[in-house]
């Protein structure tokens, strides 16, 4: 972010009450909408607006090997695997290419802080507005995995009646 936003962020951080007001505002938006877990290093824009920190393993780079065939979580079969939901939503929003970005290791110092202010301060990466254009030729990216994903997704969505979208 720019020098100006960094200055604004520094100002806010010097004023705890102001910080709290902004953070409360952020939470008021992000909690009900995205079930945000206040990780402070927000990657919602590249996870189809579903917070991956709901995953019991807090995986930010995709699902573990244990997702159940019906798309539920291996740890708690009563909940959907968040990565299952992310892939389904990303497919709908046409943002699948964003999901093969390797995420930075999580900075634990940011837990419980405001991602908006961290973004202004330049501590975390910006918002990804568009799925990045495909770089490789279609022969290499292969339409088949995408097509395969669609078919397997359609099949499994009917197999997971409880799946929220």
């Amino acid at each position: 972010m720019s020098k100006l936003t960094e200055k604004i962020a520094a100002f806010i951080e010097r004023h705890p009450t102001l910080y709290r007001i902004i953070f409360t505002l952020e939470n008021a938006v992000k909690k009900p909408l995205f079930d945000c877990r206040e990780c402070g290093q927000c990657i919602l824009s590249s996870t189809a607006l579903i917070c991956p920190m709901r995953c019991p393993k807090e995986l930010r780079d995709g699902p573990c090997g244990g997702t159940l065939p019906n798309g539920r979580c291996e740890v708690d079969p009563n909940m959907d695997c968040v990565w299952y939901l992310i892939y389904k939503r990303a497919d709908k929003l046409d943002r699948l290419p964003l999901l093969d970005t390797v995420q930075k290791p999580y900075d634990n110092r940011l837990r419980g802080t405001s991602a908006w202010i961290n973004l202004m301060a330049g501590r975390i990466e910006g918002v990804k507005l568009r799925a990045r254009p495909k770089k490789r030729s279609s022969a290499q990216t292969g339409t088949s995995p995408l097509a395969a994903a669609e078919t397997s997704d359609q099949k499994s969505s009917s197999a997971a009646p409880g799946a929220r979208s």
Partner: protein
Amino acid sequence: MENARSDACGVSHLERVLSSGHFAVCGEIGPPRGADPSEVLRKCEYFRGVVDAVNLTDNQAAVARMSSMAASLLTMQAGLEPIMQMTCRDRNRLAQQSDMLGAAALGIRNILCLSGDHVTLGNHPQAKSVHDLDAVNLTAMMRGLREGHFLSGDEVKTPPELFIGATANPFGEPFLARVHNLKKKVASGAQFIQTQVVFDVPRFEKWMQACRDEGLTEQTYILAGIAPVRSASTLKFMRNNVAGVHIAEEYIQRMSAASSKEDAMDEGVRIAVETIQRVRDIPGVAGVHIMPVMWESVIRRVVEGAGLLPRPDVLESPPAEARSASELTP
């Protein structure tokens, strides 16, 4: 492998076997739930001369056991090459790096990075589940160590020589995530991949096809997971209790059809051998990783049955320039 090289090079025996174009065979030993080294040594006897390297699991199924590093060292003492597994469940990035340096100092060269079963599935569900890094970041961190820097960026004085592996589950949902996941791991430095057990060859084939389309089989060695089972009930147990395992109905029926215990065991071996032969025909499959479920003694029968004996004898010490040549950079 299509890109097989005739000259063996690499930092470990496993890497040399793979880089010289041989079809690799790995085994797996679960360290004991006690301090008796002879249990590891006894199991090693089944694997010696039958596999190229053997995995030592890291508190598998989130159950506390002898450490993977210690068991790896015992394995080396028994004359076998270990693949040390390291999960993200029990260690943060500091512990992971220090354990890796320690393991390398002891002579361990193969490392397998995985996320690990969640603590709530094991025998200490009250434990703090760490998951500081995920398996992708862990893989990248290991590559960093080999290249001479810690995750922090600080220099590693003597970088460890490592052959870095990761896992993949071709059978989990959603399918595309399974391909992306591998892509990320390969981009982060995974030189070999061990997959979840294959009990559904068509689905595995489809996943391999997607991997080939992404060019992944050119950048990493994929070893298919094989599990010889001794009874229909073991198979059913796996289907119902082991996360991420997918078993086609056909195999359960075949195992259930056996008339006696011995018959079932024979059928288990037949299925394993047959699966090895089928995956071997799939382009891009570089080897197999055989995980006998509580049945280590069967390993020779399976490997022999699949026509994979004797195991290749590759150079003991690689030429000096081998290391850089062996690094499969994406």
